[in-house]
């Protein structure tokens, strides 16, 4: 069966809708190929001209595969696979002749919708792709109908999809989940993501701070602690090369990194994927969970890279009991500086060492120096020269947290106090609607720790000296209005802010209950319902699906019955049965008018009464306007009460 222009038009429109989100992350030439081929195919359909010959199509397919391989170096993996799928779909259009070809392209469209979920799984994307699925199903239905009616196809496929939802929910809840991946495809995990990186150089954190993306969300079991105490510890950086700080020897995992005391804080972190090993927690974590470990300098590390959103629970206590002495290896590392560079800072450090022999005084003096001198806290610091610390300390004096942390640790080390840089996040925004804390990339922060004998590692935040409001209430309070922090996050309009928070709340629930519904969560949820193993899951799945199907069948059957259950028809059928006993049987095909005429011939005595009844019945059944219920009741009563005398025919 040939394919009509309407169906081709629908097909092209539907596929374009499905492809639209893909264009955001695929090379431009793929979109261009799609548009060109779609237009070509549409013109072919409009002009009823022939499809390109097989040789041309074959050449195009070869060219497409070559182009994809040239772009990605492979045809496997997510990005290359999706690109290949789209290009092949475009070329498939050039040989759409029959219904069967349409069905194949629509199958591919469903695959494309699925592959879009590998890129993004937000609520909005789900809504968009649900609409796309509706279109695909409608086009499918349209291509199967012998009389094409777009409205009917849209309506019926909407009904069909909505009716499919209950069974889908049962399957989603109960279908036994296993931990993926079943196999590994190249290029799946090398996706770059924003987040704290493994090194810190001037400008790296201020750049990160301009992103509103969520880094992680935290739910506290008993109230959110004070904003100023929320230091989310990330990578600890020891090694300075004159410009950037790194951690050259990844910390060895230890059993307990520090003895702690104080009131424990229990919280759950829902971390967005950042493709790194580290996790974030509050000082001082006492018990890392399974699949994670803690290093000697307090970095919480996952055993595998975080490539998808995870949720983990931590317990922290505020007080640590450090050993009296710093181990020699750590001491050496915490004092090491490059052999050359930044002479003026070294000079300042020696002067501080001379003037203030007590380390505590020295620290206080340096922080005061930051606070008093014309140091400015800004998101757009000027570029620094080769001697970056000198440049910052004596020339520009404008910097973001990484500048202060870097200069502070340098000066501390130069004056003989062991010190290190800690990166991570500070603070977060409390969402009252969902009772959780949102920590964004804009909350990225760098601070320092210095070793003081008898006290151990003490957290010193130089930023607090220059911009205390950053620590107490968050970044937006610390920066002047002109700072280029983007987005609604910074808005002062109350209700807009509420809206943003409400939206984040929805996203959080979505992440927690839908996107993270994997083997663990399923196990937890089903255990509460008393379903503990696969056998029971399979059983419940079958039972519930059958129940839903049975309910549908019941309701459809019931609505069918209503036609026959019309009481007037019932009474008429009963009357006919009674007449049949008298020998006047009504064949199925005989209408009331003919029947009445026959009764008149065979039994004129009965007709006197039956004639008007049959006439009224005829009027009631076949008139266009709706009859009122009283006349219906009256007719039923008359049909029932008619006396049928058994007399011989005249």
């Amino acid at each position, binding site marked *: 069966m040939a394919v009509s222009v309407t169906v081709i038009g629908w097909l092209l429109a539907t596929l374009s809708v499905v492809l639209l989100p893909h264009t955001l992350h695929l090379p431009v030439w793929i979109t261009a190929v799609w548009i060109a081929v779609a237009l070509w195919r549409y013109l072919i359909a409009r002009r009823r001209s022939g499809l390109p010959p097989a040789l041309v199509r074959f050449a195009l397919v070869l060219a497409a595969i070559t182009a994809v391989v040239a772009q990605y170096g492979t045809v496997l993996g997510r990005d290359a696979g999706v690109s290949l799928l789209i290009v092949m779909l475009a070329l498939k259009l050039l040989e759409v002749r029959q*219904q*069967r070809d349409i*069905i194949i392209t629509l*199958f591919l469209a*469903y*695959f494309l*919708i*699925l592959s879009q*979920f*590998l890129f993004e*799984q937000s609520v909005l*994307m*789900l809504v968009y*792709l649900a609409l796309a*699925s509706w279109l695909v*199903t409608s086009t*499918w*239905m349209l291509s*199967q*109908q*012998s*009389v094409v009616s777009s409205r009917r196809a849209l309506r*019926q*496929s909407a009904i*069909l*999809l909505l*009716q*499919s*939802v*209950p*069974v*889908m929910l049962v*399957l*989603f809840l109960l*279908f036994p*989940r*296993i*931990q*993926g*991946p*079943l*196999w590994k495809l190249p290029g799946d995990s090398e996706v770059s993501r924003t987040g704290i990186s493994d090194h810190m150089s001037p400008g790296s954190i201020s750049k990160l701070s301009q992103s509103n993306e969520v880094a992680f969300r935290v739910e506290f079991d008993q109230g959110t602690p004070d904003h100023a105490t929320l230091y989310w510890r990330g990578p600890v950086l020891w090694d300075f090369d004159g410009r950037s700080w790194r951690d050259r020897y990844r910390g060895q995992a230890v059993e307990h990194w520090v003895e702690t005391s104080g009131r424990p804080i229990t919280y759950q972190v829902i971390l967005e994927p950042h493709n790194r090993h580290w996790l974030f927690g509050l000082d001082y974590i006492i018990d890392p969970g399974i699949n994670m470990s803690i290093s000697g300098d307090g970095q919480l590390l996952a055993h595998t890279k975080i490539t*998808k959103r995870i949720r983990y629970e931590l317990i922290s206590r505020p007080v640590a009991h450090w050993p009296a002495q710093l181990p020699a290896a750590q001491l050496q590392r915490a004092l090491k500086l490059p052999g050359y560079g930044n002479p003026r800072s070294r000079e300042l450090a020696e002067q501080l060492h001379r003037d203030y022999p007590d380390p505590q005084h020295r620290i206080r003096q340096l922080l005061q120096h930051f606070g008093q001198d014309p140091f400015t806290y800004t998101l757009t610091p000027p570029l620094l020269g080769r001697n970056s610390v000198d440049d910052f300390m004596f020339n520009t004096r404008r910097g973001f947290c990484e500048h202060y942390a870097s200069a502070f640790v340098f000066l501390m080390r130069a004056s003989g106090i062991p010190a290190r840089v800690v990166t991570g996040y500070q603070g977060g925004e409390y969402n009252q609607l969902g009772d959780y804390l949102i920590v964004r990339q804009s909350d990225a922060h760098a601070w320092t720790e210095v070793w003081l004998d008898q006290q151990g590692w003490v957290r010193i935040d130089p930023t607090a000296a220059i911009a205390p409001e950053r620590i107490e209430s968050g970044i937006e309070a610390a920066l002047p209005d002109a700072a280029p922090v983007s987005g609604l996050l910074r808005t002062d309009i109350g209700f807009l802010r509420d809206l943003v928070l409400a939206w984040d709340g929805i996203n959080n629930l979505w992440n927690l209950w*839908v*996107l*993270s*519904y*994997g083997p663990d969560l399923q196990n937890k949820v089903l255990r509460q319902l008393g379903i503990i193993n696969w056998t029971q899951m399979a059983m419940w799945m079958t039972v519930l*699906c059958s129940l839903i*199907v049975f309910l*549908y*069948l019941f309701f*459809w059957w019931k*609505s*069918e019955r*209503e*036609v*026959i259950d019309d009481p007037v028809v019932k009474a008429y059928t009963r009357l006919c049965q009674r007449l049949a006993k008298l020998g006047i049987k009504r064949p*199925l095909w005989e209408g009331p008018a003919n029947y009445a005429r026959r009764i008149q011939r065979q039994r004129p005595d009965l007709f006197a009464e039956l004639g008007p009844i049959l006439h009224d019945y005829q009027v009631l059944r076949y008139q266009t306007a709706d009859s009122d219920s009283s006349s219906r009741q009256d007719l039923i009563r008359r049909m029932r009460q008619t006396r049928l005398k058994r007399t011989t025919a005249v």
Partner: protein
Amino acid sequence: MLQQWADRLSARHLAALEPGAVRLHRRRIYILPTVHGLFFGLALLVMLLSAINYSNSLAFILTFLLGSLFLLSLIKTHHNLLGLVLRCGPSRPVFAGQTAMFEINLHNPGKRERYDIIAGDDTVLPILAADSTGRVLLPVQTHQRGYISPGRVRVSTAYPLSLTRAWSWWKPECKVCVYPRPETTAPPPVKSGLAGSGQTTASRPAQGDEFAGLREYTPGDPISRLTWRRQNAQGMPSLKQFHDQVDSGLWLTWESVSHLGDTERCLSRLCQWVLECDARNERYGLVLPGEQIEPASGSEHRHQCLQALALYRSPQAQRN
């Protein structure tokens, strides 16, 4: 291939001819996935595997939604046939070699519309409104005279998505009379005497000379002699009668054609003669070995004669 195997299996228990209306109930509807359906199932499996591989909840949702869609479309396909009432409609006789059109009435007693119901191989009824009757014509090629019935009729549907096909078999008790193939090149009818009747008539012009009066029309009377000038109480027309046509008629006899030898050729010629006489509104009678039809005219008479020719020595109906 799958469909053929299923057809054979499902048609195995098909009962004998079913008179009257037949309601398609649950136990006589068969259902199987189509080739599209099988591929759809395969696609679902691939989707499920990728959902597991990427541990992607939304991919699971889409896969399960489509799986559920499959299940529901299966039910809807079944429902599209369930409860349908099949009945034979009136069908017109044809000449051998022509295509007989069997009229099949599909009644939808329910409240919902039904779509794309296929009768036979490819006769589609696109839409059947609630509580209404649709009509499809089932073509059957005829080859020889006699009665013909459509045999085993399949009523099927693949609505809504062609993922599954439901079908039911029906052996309707309807038949069409197939007249012999008329011999178009036949010579004009010959005069022939009929032994014992003492009446001999010659072939002569058909138009009557003298108007004899009017009588009430009865179905089967030649339409050319109707008059609407005078109508009875029911508004039916009257029939003009002429003297010539009252008394005598032309006898078409088996003897006059028996020299042709072959039975079928004889019947073909007689058939042609009947048609010619009928076209001229003549009165004619037919004599076959063992059967005699008195001279008359009109469509009813024509059918009677042609039917006699059709069934001559072949009482059994054709099957296919």
